[in-house]
Each structure stands twice: as structure tokens, then as C-alpha cells.
């Protein structure tokens, strides 16, 4: 009992850090947390954007340029005066006077759709190829893994630019580019896991029972790696959003007036010193979505593991 009292987390100096850890721990244990963030802050407004968003995401008024968020007070005098925030634009406006909150809400549609579709497709392609490579081995394995090596060794941006130039900037191009880069990570991970599970006795036993390759892969190997795939997928959400942002920033992604989070950050980049909120607000949106996806993935992994289900 004395030992429990002595753990460093209970020392007075560590109290604040401890609180943060505890909050994260709570969020992990009670998945309603991340799910709530995801649903109420990001997904639901995105779906009902037409009713929820206070302004149009693409039409601004130049007289309302660079209005700060509502809690920022007016500052300075004369020509140096900066206006204070208003409740009219809760999160402020950008250089064109467009409401940032509305753009984030509409942007969630774009960013989350791109992330969901491309991660699903990349996972599908990568998992299938990884399973085939790991399970059958031999030349198929060599072929797939060399393709993975090529994908991983190519500079993603260059590759994306070439593809975008060939295909033209559009929603589909962004997804094709992301899938053709991200599938390789799934393939490599899944292959490794498959190799490990393939050598376990229950697979041999299933073969002795007369199970076909398809059955062994779908019933015995896949259920044992699905956790890893889910965790990887949730971790990739952030990277996909960032890649999409990078592509849009370079003009190879979504066309300009589209309210994508990455595009918004890119627009706010040069204003970071004078109007930080233009880049920071979509940044917070990315942060929230990535974090809640990670927490959700954590919880799902525990949930899908029968060993931990009843704990």
C-alpha cells in the first residue's frame, strides 16, 4: 500500500502534468469523449453545414477583412488600430472577409471525405496485397514488396505533382495520389503481421482440418491483424489531411475556392504574425480531428480484442 502512495504521479510538483494524463486516460477509457468531439464538433456540423454555418464559406465582404475571434479586444489607436472580435464572426474572418467558422464547417466535409475515402481505399489495396504477399510468399511477395519499396522511396510531393499535372487538379486526383502513396504502408505492415501469424499452430491446424487458403486468410489471419490496420488507419488520418493540405497549397490538390482546411492554413501562413487566427483555427480543427481519431482508434483496438473486452 505504501508503494502506491509513493508513485511519482502523486507528488505535488507533478500535479498539473498528472491532470493532463488523467484527462487523456479518461478519454481513452470512456470512448464517448473522442466520439463526442468527432460527432458534435466535426462530423454533424459538416453534414448539416447548410443550416449550421452562419455565413457562406466562399463569399466574403472586404469591409470585414481580418476580423479577429470574438474574445479578442480592440487594440491600438489611429492607423495602428486593430478591430476587436464580434459575435457576428465567432472565429474571425480571413483576408477576403470570409467567415472562418463557416469555412471550417464546410472544410470538414472536404477534408474528412478525402481522408475517409482515401484511407479506406489505401487500406483495401494495401491490406489485400499485404495478405497475398505474406501468405503466399515467393515471387508474389518479391513483386509486391519491391513495389512497396519504390513507393516508399519516391518523394511523395514530386510524385503527387507529376500525377496532378497528368490528371489535372481535382477531388479524384487528390484521392488517387494519396492512395498510391499510402497503400504501401498498409502492405508492408500487413505482410509482416501475416508472416508472424501464418507460422502459428492454429493456421497449420486449420489446414489439417481441410480449410482452403481463402478461409484461412479471411477467418484466421485477417481477424488477427484487423486491430493493427485500424490503428494504422486512425494514425494516418492526420497525415492524409496534411498531405491533402500540401497538395492544395501547391495548387495540385483541390481547386482554390474550396474551403479545405489545408488550403485555409496555407492562406493564413503569410498572416501568421498579424492575424494568427486565419491559420490557427483550421489548425485546431485538424488537431481535434486527428486526436479524436487516435483516441477512437485506441478504444476500437481494445474493443476488438477479445482478451481485453471483459476487462
Amino acid at each position, binding site marked *: 500500500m505504501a508503494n502506491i502512495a509513493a508513485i511519482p504521479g502523486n507528488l505535488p510538483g507533478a500535479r498539473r502534468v498528472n491532470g493532463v494524463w488523467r484527462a487523456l486516460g479518461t478519454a481513452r477509457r470512456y470512448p464517448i469523449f473522442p466520439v463526442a468531439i468527432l460527432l458534435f464538433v466535426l462530423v454533424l456540423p459538416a453534414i448539416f453545414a447548410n443550416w449550421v454555418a452562419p455565413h457562406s464559406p466562399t463569399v466574403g465582404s472586404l469591409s470585414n477583412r481580418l476580423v479577429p475571434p470574438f474574445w479578442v479586444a480592440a487594440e491600438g489607436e489611429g492607423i495602428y488600430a486593430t478591430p476587436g472580435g464580434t459575435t457576428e464572426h465567432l472565429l474571425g474572418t480571413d483576408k477576403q472577409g470570409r467567415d472562418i467558422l463557416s469555412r471550417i464547417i464546410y472544410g470538414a466535409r472536404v477534408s474528412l471525405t478525402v481522408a475517409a475515402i482515401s484511407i479506406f481505399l489505401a487500406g483495401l489495396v494495401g491490406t489485400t496485397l499485404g495478405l497475398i504477399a505474406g501468405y503466399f510468399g515467393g515471387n508474389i511477395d*518479391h513483386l509486391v514488396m519491391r513495389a512497396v519499396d519504390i513507393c516508399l522511396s519516391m518523394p511523395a510531393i514530386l510524385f503527387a505533382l507529376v500525377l496532378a499535372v497528368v490528371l489535372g487538379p481535382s477531388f479524384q486526383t487528390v484521392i488517387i495520389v494519396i492512395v498510391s502513396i499510402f497503400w504501401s504502408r498498409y502492405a508492408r505492415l500487413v505482410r509482416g503481421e501475416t508472416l508472424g501469424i501464418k507460422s*502459428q*499452430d*492454429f493456421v*497449420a*491446424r*486449420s*489446414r*489439417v*482440418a*481441410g*480449410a*482452403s487458403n481463402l*478461409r484461412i486468410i479471411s*477467418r*484466421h489471419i485477417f*481477424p*488477427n491483424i484487423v486491430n493493427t490496420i485500424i490503428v494504422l488507419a486512425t494514425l494516418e488520418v492526420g497525415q492524409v489531411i496534411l498531405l491533402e493540405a500540401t497538395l492544395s497549397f501547391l495548387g495540385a490538390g483541390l481547386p482554390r475556392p474550396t474551403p479545405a482546411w489545408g488550403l485555409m492554413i496555407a492562406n493564413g501562413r503569410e498572416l501568421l504574425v498579424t492575424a494568427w487566427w486565419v491559420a490557427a483555427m483550421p489548425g485546431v480543427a485538424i488537431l481535434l480531428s486527428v486526436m479524436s481519431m487516435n483516441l477512437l482508434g485506441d478504444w476500437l483496438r481494445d474493443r476488438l480484442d*477479445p*482478451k481485453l473486452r471483459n476487462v
Partner: protein
Amino acid sequence: MTTMTETGTQGRAPAESGEILLEVKNLKMHFPVTAGIIFQRAVAHIKAVDGVSFFVRRGETLGLVGESGCGKTTTGRCILQLYRPTDGQVIFDGQELTGLSTRQMRTMRRRMQVIFQDPYSSLNPRMTAGNIIGEPLIVHGLVNSKDEYKDRVAELLQNVGLNPYMADRFPHEFSGGQRQRIGVARALSVDPSFIVCDEPVSALDVSIQAQIVNLLEDLQERFDLTYLFIAHDLSVVRHISNRVAVMYLGHIVEIADRNEIYRSPLHPYTRALLSAVPIPDPIIDAQRERILLSGEVPSPLNPPSGCVFHPRCPIAIDSCSEVTPELREVDSNHWAACIQAPGYGSY
């Protein structure tokens, strides 16, 4: 398939080959050691099993013993065609298995099953006990309805001493002994006639070992099973086997009835092995002669010439490094592969 019908798949009609259920002839399994980054080529072969011949009679238990790495498990896996043997024949009930296609082999799989050593890695952690046991039923289409499936799984669970309500539990909720029982139930689900028991009790506590061994014996009687019992524990093998085969470095060195082999072992390796069995009586233990082998087991990558045992053999003579001794019947039902065994004859 014609041979199968001739010898009779149903019942235990003792046709001329009915006596012998499984025959292994000159089985070889050489695993290639490859090198090269893109173009892989075999630079050497690990001779895990190198010319093994034996047979198993219907209804008997053949114990297969030997130290770690001598090829016992590989032999078992070759019989089940989990590995495609490099050479040799596996004849099961008159049917040659090595040449069968995957599809043909699948129908044969109903008749030969396996129980593995590790009760942890041999059960899929994501399937319930009921589904683990019932999978072969579905694979082979042995049940027609969900109720029949459930009934059969419940029956199998009872056969191995588990409760039917345990069908919905996951493997991690069982103890080691219970897991092994699930493994046994699964092997029984297709009503096989032959089961390879690959060290089924090695990973268990001694008290649980006895339970599982007794269970295996009961089931053998009830369902007319034939076992190939692979183990390294000589006392367990003595208990359960009718005959015992001793393996060393990919070769079988001696086969005899269990009492015969424990009473009068002919091969020097068998003698050394048996002298290592602990006797729970310090007085007898102190009196008996211990044969200590010098050196290590040679690598199966580069086995010694002639008799593979000769570098460690206490009675080796010059010819031992030149002549590869075949397994010969030196006494009735007593086979040995040693040129110095009495009754071996000329070499």
C-alpha cells in the same frame, strides 16, 4: 481413390493392408538454406528428416521419441502433408499422399488430424471455443443446420470433459489443460481414424498431463483411434504407446514394442536415452549405469558420414563411419539401425 474403396473406408475391415493404417517409406524432408537478395539460390540443405521408414497399425499408438531438433515434429508434419516431403512415400490406408493435389488431400484430411504441443498458439484467439471446434464441420460440410452444428459441438465438448456452455468462450478464458481439451475436441470433430499427437502434453503441468493422457486413451478406445504420439518425455511415451520409435538426427534408430525397448534396447543411442530417464528411487538410481554421451548433436546441415550417431557412440568401430546402417528387423518386431546390434547381420 479406388484404392481407398478397396481397402474400405468404413469400419475396420482387416483387409491385407488393414493391419497397417499408415506406412512411411524412406521419407526425406530437406529444407533449403537460401542466399541472395533478389535471385535466391539454395546454398545448403538442412536434412531435418533423412530417410525415415515405419508403419503404424490400426488401433495402436506408436510413440516417436528423440531429443529436440531430431526431426520428430517434421516427420509428423510431413505425414499430414503440411510440408511437402522432398522424397519418400506416405501411404495412408492404401492411399499414397505425397502426390495428391490440394483438393484431393482435403478429402483425406477428414481422416487424419493433429493435436499440437502449444495450447496457446494452436487456438485462434479471435474465435470462440465452439467455432474452433466446429470449423472442420463446416469446412467438410458435415452438418446441415445450425441446430445440428450446435448439438455436435456440445457433444464434442462433452466428449473431452468440458461443459457445452463453454462454447461461447474465447481461448484466453481457458486454462492450459482446458485449451488442450479444446484441441482434442477439434481433432475429433471430423471423426478421424488417425491423429498425430505432436507433444500434446509437453507444455502442461504434470497433474494435467496425466488427465490429458488418460483422456487420449479413453477416446482411443471409444472411437477406434490410431495415434502417432510424438514426445520427448519417455515415461509418458511408455505409458501410452504400444510400440516406440526412437529418432536421432533425422533417422529412426530403433523401433520395438514398448516393453521390449525399455527392457532390452539394442541401439546405443536408445540405451543412452533410457539411462537418462529419472527414477524416483535414489537407491536404484544410484546403482544403475548412466551412459553419458560426449559432444553435441551434429548439425543437420552437415550430418556425419556413415551412421550419424558414430561421433558420439560409445561403441563405435571403424566401419560405423563408412556404412550407413539401414533399419532392420533384428528380432521379431524389433528393428534397429546399428551394425553392431545382435542379429543385424552382414553390412
